[in-house]
């Protein structure tokens, strides 16, 4: 049963080499009736999602990076009339039923962009490793220093934006530096933002996917260099 009022909410999911987690994420997003655009960023095994109502699939013929995949999905959604956009991870770390809470400040016109936080009050980081937590907290500090924004979770892929905000922001950093770039643009363009506590679930699957030391190093580097795009 799909709610018709959510057709104008577009969930943008960048995807790279995701397996079954993508399918179950799409299952979660189906009942509320959101429009969904999955952007397959040149996965070795192309994402096969079957034919699902409300779900669009785009493919980058070459791997460009998560930032590029997000921007592609955002462009597509805006082109198709999205009123609200939600960026969402493909690996099952985010919870679909927290989307309404992310949209509420936008609907109330308290902000043009909401940023999910797992570290702010009310946020949860389930099964996070100490290394990951330490890296992200340090990245947050560095990002605060370089963008001036008092954000508690700078590398959270769960965000919601109004159509207007989506049209003002432009992600040109194709790879992981896009997270810092988004914050840098929010600061520079003075976009009204609000942080919303969300849950981030670390499963064995998602942990195995992204826990290299090089990740930590790159995240910290890009957070410090926030203003350099």
């Amino acid at each position, binding site marked *: 049963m799909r709610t018709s009022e959510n057709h104008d909410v577009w969930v943008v999911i960048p995807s790279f080499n995701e397996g079954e987690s993508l399918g179950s994420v799409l299952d979660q997003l189906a009942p509320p009736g959101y429009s969904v655009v999955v*952007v397959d960023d040149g996965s070795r095994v192309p994402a*096969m999602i*079957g*034919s*699902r*109502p*409300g*779900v*669009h*699939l*785009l*493919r*980058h*013929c*070459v791997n*460009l990076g998560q930032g*590029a995949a997000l*921007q*592609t999905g955002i*462009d*597509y959604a805006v*082109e198709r009339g999205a009123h609200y956009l939600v960026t969402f991870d493909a690996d099952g770390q985010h919870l679909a039923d927290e989307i309404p809470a992310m949209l509420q400040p936008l609907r109330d016109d308290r902000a043009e962009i909401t940023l999910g936080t797992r570290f702010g009050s009310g946020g949860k980081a389930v099964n996070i490793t100490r290394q990951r937590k330490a890296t992200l907290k340090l990245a947050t500090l560095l990002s605060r220093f370089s963008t001036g924004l008092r954000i508690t979770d700078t590398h959270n892929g769960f965000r919601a934006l109004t159509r207007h905000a989506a049209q003002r922001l432009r992600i*040109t950093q*194709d790879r992981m530096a896009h997270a810092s770039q988004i914050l840098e643009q929010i600061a520079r363009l003075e976009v009204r933002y609000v942080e919303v506590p969300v849950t981030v679930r670390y499963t064995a699957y998602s942990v195995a996917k992204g826990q290299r030391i090089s990740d930590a190093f790159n995240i910290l580097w890009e957070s410090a260099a926030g203003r350099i795009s």
Partner: protein
Amino acid sequence: MRLIQPILLAALLCLFFVYLRFLRSTLRDRVLALIFFLLASAAVVVPDSTQRLAHMVGVGRGTDLTFYLFAVAFSFSAVLTYSRLSRVSRSLTEVVRRIAILEAQRPNQPEPAE
């Protein structure tokens, strides 16, 4: 005339022609290339010119001066190359994005048969 001089001159001539033939050449680039070629040739041909130049600017040896200038020119060129690469990368992204949107698979469409 030391042996190194015709060798370097020949090398410079080759570089100059390669540059003209294969690399971007706006008017500015051509002028820069010509100036570089002439200066470099002068340094090679006129005996001890680098040595005298070095003394004028307080550097001990001509070789050292050449090295410093080379280091600067190289760094500059590295930065130029990086910015060119970035531009190419951005163009690539735009093309891949355009293709992705054009070939979008809309809902309720069967997967293309492989």
